[in-house]
């Protein structure tokens, strides 16, 4: 057994929690430093992981496996491949940046950072777990701190949003649990091991696959979120404090998509095939519907939240295509959505900190007042609307291109969604930055250095991946190819 780097990454935040707990409540500065250090170490480890990863090989790497509950053949089984590595990196990166953005959180900082770090462990564990039971445990571990983080430090309707988030996602995940259990009892020998289950994937009857797929779908769909299970999202995003919105959009939504990649598709390929068309339809509904609803928003944050719904539609579309191109696009889109929408939420937060409003109607003309902020907002907005040269374009492009041969009409409808997407994004830019200056904000201050630190890395990644996207495909391509091989795509 080699160096347990994955456990180290996943449990570094826990070490941070213990350290934070040891610090008296009053010493907020030290608490912040510890939390930042913990997330920073996790980030460094994540970068180390990226460097140590063998990009030629699409199989699992850095595998750790210890028996946990022998009775059920459950093991503590971690590993990364191209599917999870980008998600892990996204998680450690966003957690670090959002941690810096958390300095402005008001009150109860000790509790905040403890929950925050717990959240990070949960998210990392979800992406690293190779055992369904372990996966579920981490999946649920995410819910609890998230509930508190929204509920305690959220906006005016925080309680409603928090409980809604909790109930919705739990409702989905318990059905997911049933699906896992069904898989366990149907596999031979009984196992929760994802890799083992993948090997025996051909063995499940189609009817069984469909039922289990539906059960898992409920869990993942609510997380993604897929229309019509998305209504928790706008509330949660809007009420959550800025750093938590970042993680919610940046990482939590990915857990759902990742579940399709890691579990539903490789283990239940025939059901996936059978479900491709409905999924594609749901994807396009997400894209179009999300965009239309976003257009009607006058709340900055809500607009970004609904744009997430729209963006995640591309993930579904790419998944539904079951082609290498489409699935690469879907996975890539998950990463890009994390960086771009994460950045968008940070920007919303920056503005909100200064103006204490998110009402788009009350802004205007800020472009002349705070040009650096304006520039950043413009870049992220353009990334969000899928401007070529920024990463969002590439992934949307890939998933559409991958889907086109399989579902022409659906793709065409989806593509026309980019017009609406452009419309609401430009509307956003116009309402915030352009037009005559609202005199209320004539003394507004420019974005500060700390905020820049949180945003510039995201922008750099967005640009880099937009200009040189194949680098991401080097990372995820081999694993996606293996997955596609497994699901025997409708069209190669």
């Amino acid at each position, binding site marked *: 057994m080699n160096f347990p780097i994955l456990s180290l990454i996943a449990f570094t935040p826990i070490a941070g929690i213990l350290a934070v707990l040891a610090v008296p409540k009053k010493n907020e500065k030290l608490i912040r430093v510890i939390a930042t250090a913990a997330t920073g170490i996790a980030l460094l480890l994540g970068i180390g992981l990226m460097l140590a990863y063998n990009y030629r090989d699409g199989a699992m790497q850095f595998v750790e496996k210890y028996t946990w509950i022998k009775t059920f053949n459950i093991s503590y089984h971690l590993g990364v491949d191209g599917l999870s590595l980008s998600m892990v990196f996204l998680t450690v990166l966003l957690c670090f940046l959002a941690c810096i953005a958390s300095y402005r959180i008001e009150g109860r900082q000790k509790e905040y950072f403890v929950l925050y770090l717990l959240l990070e462990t949960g998210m990392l564990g979800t992406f690293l777990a190779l055992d369904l039971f372990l996966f579920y445990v981490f999946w649920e571990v995410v819910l609890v701190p998230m509930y508190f983080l929204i509920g305690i430090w959220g906006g005016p309707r925080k309680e409603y949003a928090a409980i809604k988030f909790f109930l919705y996602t739990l409702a989905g995940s318990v059905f997911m649990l049933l699906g896992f259990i069904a898989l366990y009892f149907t596999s031979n020998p009984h196992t929760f091991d994802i890799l083992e289950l993948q090997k025996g994937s051909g063995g499940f009857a189609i009817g069984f696959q469909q039922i289990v797929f539906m059960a898992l779908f409920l869990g993942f769909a609510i997380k993604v979120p897929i229309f019509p299970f998305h209504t928790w999202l706008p509330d949660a995003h809007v009420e959550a404090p800025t750093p938590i919105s970042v993680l919610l959009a940046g990482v939590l939504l990915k857990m759902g998509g990742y579940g399709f990649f890691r579990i539903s598709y490789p283990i239940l390929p025939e059901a996936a095939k059978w479900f491709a068309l409905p999924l594609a339809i749901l994807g396009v509904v997400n894209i179009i519907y999300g965009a239309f609803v976003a257009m009607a928003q006058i709340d900055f944050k809500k607009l970004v939240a609904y744009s997430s719904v729209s963006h995640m539609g591309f993930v579904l579309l790419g998944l539904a295509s079951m082609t290498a191109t489409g699935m690469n696009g879907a996975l890539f889109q998950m990463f890009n959505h994390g960086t771009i929408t994460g950045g968008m939420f940070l920007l919303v937060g920056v503005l909100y900190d200064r103006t204490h409003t998110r009402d788009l109607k009350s802004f205007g003309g800020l472009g002349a007042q705070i040009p650096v902020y304006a*520039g950043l907002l413009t870049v992220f907005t353009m990334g969000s609307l899928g401007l070529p040269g920024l990463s969002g*374009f590439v992934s949307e492009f890939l998933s559409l291109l991958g889907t086109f041969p399989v579902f022409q009409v659906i793709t065409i409808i989806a593509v026309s969604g980019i017009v609406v997407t452009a419309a609401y994004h430009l509307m956003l830019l116009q309402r915030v930055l352009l037009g005559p200056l609202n005199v209320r904000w004539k003394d507004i201050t420019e974005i500060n250095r700390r905020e820049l630190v949180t945003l510039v890395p995201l922008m750099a990644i967005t640009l880099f991946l937009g200009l040189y996207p194949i680098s991401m495909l080097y990372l995820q391509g081999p694993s996606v190819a293996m997955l596609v091989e497994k699901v025997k795509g409708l069209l190669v």
Partner: protein
Amino acid sequence: MMNYPYLIPLFPLMAFAANILFGKKLGKKSALVSIAASTASAALSISAFVNFLRGSVASVSFAWLNVNGAPVMFGILVDQLSLMMLLVVSVIGTLIQVYSTGYMSDDKRFSRFFAYMSLFMFSMLSLVLSNNFMMIYIFWELVGVCSYFLISFWFEKDSAANAGKKAFITTRIGDVGLFIGLAMIFWLSGSPYFSDLPAIAQNPDRVLLTAAAILIFCGAVGKSAQFPLHVWLPDAMEGPTPVSALIHAATMVAAGVYLVARCYPLFAACPAALVVVAYIGIVTAFMAGTIALVVNDIKRILAYSTISQLGYMIAALGCGGYTAGTFHLMTHAFFKALLFLGAGSVIHGVHTQDIRQMGGIFSKMKITAATFIIASLAIAGVPPLAGFWSKDEILVSMFASGNYVIFGLAYLTSIFTAFYMFRLCFIVFFGRPRKADLHAHESPAVMTVPLMVLAFFSIFIGLVGSPLMHNWFGHFVTFGEGHHGGAPAGLIMGASVAAGVIGIAIAFALYILKWQLVPQAVRIRFTWLHTLLINKYYMDEIYLSAIIRPIALLSKYSFRFDKNLIDGVVNWTGLFSLFLSEVKNSFDKHVVDGLVNGAAKLVDLCSGHARRLQTGLIQNYMLFIIAGLVIILFVNLIR
């Protein structure tokens, strides 16, 4: 000689980076950075051109993306067409940036302007050099966004911000078609490269091929402001005038024409697509030409003229006039840039855009006026200026294609062109000032020198395609259509000259001699026509009520749907609970209190009811268990 064509776009990119990052420090020097970069690009373009003539073609490629398992290599395509475009873009771009240093000198976002200009140069040059669909799409979008930034450069004006948005969204509608088209190309062939287009065109599925071609053309419709997506271009005049000159006259709008030319192997293989192209082009040309007759804003006249001329080019391509279309693209770039810059100079001098307030400024702005009139003559097709040769070429190719309706409309349009251009010239430069406090003055040298250079090109550039130079251009940029043997070339050349002369003559009669050519009665009878034209065929209004409003409403209702229906899970739950709460007021608290959504409402409602079972009366409880027992036993009994 150096031959690094792939460096051509990179210089402006570096200039962009320098200006956006260090714009504040650079101050006025940012203009120098940008100009130096585009000068370098121009020089490299010339060197590439020379090398190309010598037969040496440089190439470069790198893997950018994997699609369908095969890497998509990004590379450059240096051929006749792209070289022509490179030269046009880099030269005109350089001149316009020089001009801008004067025009924009007072602007507070001076360096930002040059940053955007450089970014545009980068995008446009890259677009021209692209060797595959994906790359061209990327830069296609990038020029679009540059256009957006530059149109709404003076974003404090709502109209500018709106115009930018409109431009971006309208062109994006076309891009949807382009996207689907290129996805179809991918699907049909698996290859995104232009070099494979002739092979792709062999695909037996003609319907799909035609569809793909038309969809790609949609992109051109948007970008080149063709009917019905032309509405953004006149509004785009809200941007600074050099922007209008560079982007919305000379280069970017020509990208659509370039795209069609680039994909000509595909179109050539699909006659139906060509017909669509031709008719869209001529309708655009005619319609915009007519609107230009009545517009009074100097830049808008030029904008409609641009639309009209682009329609001309498109129609030429649609009629098989590959050389004619591209040739006109080149000549038009020069004289239209000159026209815009001239107009900019006028605006700079008189601080208004309404021609009805100008007049008699010839004497005060001699260089401007002279170059402007040269350009007008060029566009009107007066020999031997540039426009004459290319327009003649187009008319010949239309006639040769045998489509006389198109030819007729094109001919009519060329009369209109001459007329409205000289209507403009006569009103602006001659006669007496219509406004008393018009303090017109000549622009500084940085502005007039580019005018003069462009005027030079406007006069002489056409010669490369003229019989005088043995139709060198036609041999250089050609799709092998040969010379139009069937057309009476001489006759058409005469007719073309006549059209220009007629147009100018009418304008002269109306605006210099003040003749009442049309009787009052007739004029009154045709007021509706005037109104129709003034309102631009009501296109904007139609869009507003047929598309924009419905979409806004749809969006609003989607949100309501989302908020009320989806969120309420099932509407009846809400109604049901409402009904119940009316029946029993005491339940209000439980119905309304802290509910998550419809399902939770239901649970809570049940809970509120069910807890009433717990009456506190022990014998009720006992009754309950007996009832339970009886039920359990009874169920078994009947089973």
